[in-house]
């Protein structure tokens, strides 16, 4: 059921950017295409369905293992970890600021800081690498629980 090409969809414009979509039952939807992103509005919910979205999802899975990335455009307010420093899961390693709010960036797991890729005051873009982690055993040789 996950292959969209299996589905027959009737789409009728209702004007003013809205569409009636019939696929078994009738729904009213809206959507917009921006670059490689496709946004779909369906029953009060917004979905981002696109190659770009799938790509970024894949990328973020990899990132969680090795690097911390900026989730949105933001200013680097503080950096609490230096290269070679051992950090624990959930430890705040960095603080970003956007839209008047502080966003603490936490270590996703125990590890050692491999590199820091930004400076206090930098304006970082979404997806930009902030800091890279490596396993503690890579630095110390001790056994680390996954």
């Amino acid at each position, binding site marked *: 059921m996950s292959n969209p090409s299996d589905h027959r969809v009737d*789409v009728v414009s209702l004007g*003013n950017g*809205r569409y009636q979509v019939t696929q078994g039952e009738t729904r009213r939807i809206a959507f917009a295409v921006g670059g490689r992103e496709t946004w779909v509005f*369906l029953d009060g919910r917004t979905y981002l369905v696109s190659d770009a979205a799938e790509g970024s999802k894949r990328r973020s899975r990899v990132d969680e293992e090795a690097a911390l990335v900026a989730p949105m455009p933001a200013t680097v307010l503080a950096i609490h970890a230096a290269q070679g420093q051992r950090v624990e899961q959930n430890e705040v390693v960095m603080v970003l600021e956007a*839209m008047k709010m502080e966003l603490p960036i936490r270590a996703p797991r125990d590890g050692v800081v491999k590199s820091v890729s930004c400076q206090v005051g930098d304006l970082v873009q979404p997806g930009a690498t902030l800091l890279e982690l490596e396993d503690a055993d890579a630095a110390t040789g001790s056994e680390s629980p996954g």
Partner: protein
Amino acid sequence: MSSTPPFDRILIANRGEIAVRVIRACREMGIESVAVYSDADERALHTTLADRAVRIGPPPAAESYLSIDAIVSAARQTGATAVHPGYGFLSENADFAAACEKAGLTFIGPPVAAIEGMGSKIAARQTAVKAGVPVVPGETPADQSDQAVAAAASRVGFPVLLKPSEGGGGIGMKTVHDAAVLEAAIAQARREAMAAFGDGTLYVERLIERPRHVEFQVLADHHGQVVHLFERECSIQRRHQKVIEESPSTAVSRTLRQRMGQAAIAVARAARYRNAGTVEFLLEGSGDSARFYFLEMNTRLQVEHPVTEQVTGVDLVRAQIVVAAGQPLPWRQEDLEQRGHAIEVRVYAEDPARQDLPQAGTLLLYREPSMPGIRIDTGITEGAEVAVHYDPMLAKLIATGETRDAARQRALAALHQYPILGIRTNIPLLIQLLEHPRFVAGDVDTGFLDAEGDIIRSGLPSTPPAEALAIAAVARAEGPALAGIRSTGADASGIDPWSSLRGARV
């Protein structure tokens, strides 16, 4: 009200939906409006809607919307005779009100002394106490060292709340449940206070557990009349920022309303208040036996003022302008009544599935629902850029009905027909909140969202349903033909790529 406008030209020292709201009130009253804008807002709705617009600086608020000199000189340059500050930015800045007065401009708000008196938490509490209104235990340590602030927290008793002394709008407020994390919280609260208000002075207050946030709208003219326009309940808050507001409150009985309304008027009189203001209370319990504590007075129009307008039929911005011009309020307390129920939900550019992370990007598609009992106040338009420089609130949707449940159902129906595409919004969260059994029952307190938020968020759909994938596939396959729907002009010019897709097998 007379047919001669009270002012010829008003400058609006703000941006976004509130600037648009004030511009529209001006237009209705035959008053010319002057917008101010930063470089980030050159094509924003408020900039283009006003009769005139003046650039006041680069995107950072400190160099534009918080620049007193730039705004006063914009008023002089355009011949404005009055300034409406909106909310946020300079609206509660006594220096700004004083600078306006000095430049011969009427500040559409309270006198400088009232802003100063209520802006200082100590003075505001003393005023409330003098007026016979109860307050929550707390203090601003004279010695602002970390040790002294920590000592004050111990005196007041945990849990404590750390607040910027100069603040408002919940920015920079921190809850601390025990002494172990106090030091870090003090440092963070001070940094945020410094960044938002240019002053790191902290106020330490005892946290009342499971309180409701109930506030009273007041209006005072220059002829000795002070009225209240009933309550708004704003207990649905996230990080101390309001998400849903309503009037009346399910916790306020007729008797309690009378007592709280009189207390609000007493505070306003004691502060020698003029124009529109809001007296905030914490409410412990509900009904006749509930206890209330004066929290603070906001010396400006509130974000959530529309719910009051919807249940009283009063135009608060118009009333502010009339009062600022020295005219008497057009009604007395006994003329005012609360009719029906209104609920406001704030639509934020945030991703509820990712810890409410603020979102930025282009609004590829933005269409407002149009239904009975629905009002939408916004400063955005389709195609606009949502930037990181300012508050993430995109719009306020206000639903009005004969009963609370009618208003709630209307809000839900409207949110289901409110496509905002290109950035993620909190609309899915708002829908879950409005359907939550505790909200439906009116059983809420200011900790509701913190307590229930994770469960509510776990109910948000994470993967798109097959239909969404199918629609996206159509959109991708027909990409070039669909490009037209990205611009607002497409529908108007009659381009309709979809008629050809009817029955298409994809």
